[in-house]
């Protein structure tokens, strides 16, 4: 679409493999909820007790947080900080970067521990990394596929959005 920018395109197949990985991570780490967020602030997938959470805000603030600490990292000569941990009174937040592209957010309380979360995030993070690397490769190969679903969007469709 634009130079140096590739859009993230997710199909059912990849979506369900991502969902099943974070589901396993949720169980093995004994955490409350897990979110996978694009670095630009868009929610990709979530599992666990997400009911009363504003997930869109969570995604945007997570991305802002990672972007700000990434800026700090560069300032002191680091490439990025790949793990962030925020400790609360009840709930804790563990953020980690996957394939430099997506952010894995784990929310956990005293039913789990930082050590356990770290360990499991490492294991399943590698799995996620594999999925996203394949996704990226696929996106690069298909980047100029002429047959397109969105090519069928009409001006009328667009106008209708703003009625």
């Amino acid at each position, binding site marked *: *679409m*634009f*130079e*140096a*920018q*590739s*859009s*993230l*395109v*997710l*199909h*059912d197949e*990849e*979506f*369900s493999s991502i969902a099943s990985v974070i589901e396993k991570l949720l169980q093995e780490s004994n955490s409350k909820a897990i979110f996978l967020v*694009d*670095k*630009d*602030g*868009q929610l*990709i997938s979530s599992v666990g007790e997400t009911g009363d959470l*504003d997930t*869109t*805000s969570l995604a*945007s*603030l997570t991305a*802002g947080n990672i*972007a*700000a600490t*990434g*800026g700090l990292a560069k300032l002191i000569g680091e490439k990025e900080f790949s793990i962030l941990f925020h400790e609360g009174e009840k709930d804790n937040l563990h953020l980690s970067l996957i394939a430099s592209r997506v952010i894995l957010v784990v929310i956990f309380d005293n039913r789990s521990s930082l050590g356990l979360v770290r360990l499991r995030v490492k294991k399943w993070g590698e799995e996620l990394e594999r999925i996203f690397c394949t996704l990226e490769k696929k996106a690069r190969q298909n980047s*100029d*596929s*002429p*047959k*397109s*679903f*969105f*090519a*069928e*969007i009409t001006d009328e*469709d*667009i106008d*209708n*959005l*703003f009625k």
Partner: protein
Amino acid sequence: MSFINYASREINLKIVYYGPGLCGKTTNLQYIYQRTAPDAKGKMISLATETERTLFFDFLPLSLGEIKGFKTRFHLYTVPGQVFYDASRKLILKGVDGVVFVADSQAERLDANVESLENLQDNLEEYGYKLEKLPYVIQYNKRDLPNVSSMDELSKLLNPRGVPEFSACAPKGEGVFDTLKAVAKQMLVNLKKSGH
């Protein structure tokens, strides 16, 4: 960077409102927020100073409806306009799909507009993006004030390429939705051309 999710049938697009300090970026989002039906918007987040200057960003998620069975979601962001927040401003531009430049029409802010526009181009370039390649519109805000430059003068200075431009008075909402629609439309047309 757009995000197309075939599994949940969603398209997510990021719009950034850029412009000099106090030009009215946050006011644009506040107006859109007030005038959007509850089921079409999420919470508006403002990371601001105690004096209500944007510190990091404002964020407003909108879901406008469906196109070919896909929910279209727009994520609106503003940057902090004050010059010394450049590092934060740059971060917000990452992954942008469309840009709105909000100019302050007041004559004494002419230089500030030009500087901000140059800063936008520089910051985009650091990511390898080019303003000319992005969906992009300009809004001349604060048209209600007495000391404004003429539209002609502003347009000559800030819009040599003749992209869509709108006059506005953001607190009253004049021009606010026209601006948003114009950039959103360009973004969707772009998506159509990109071929997914």
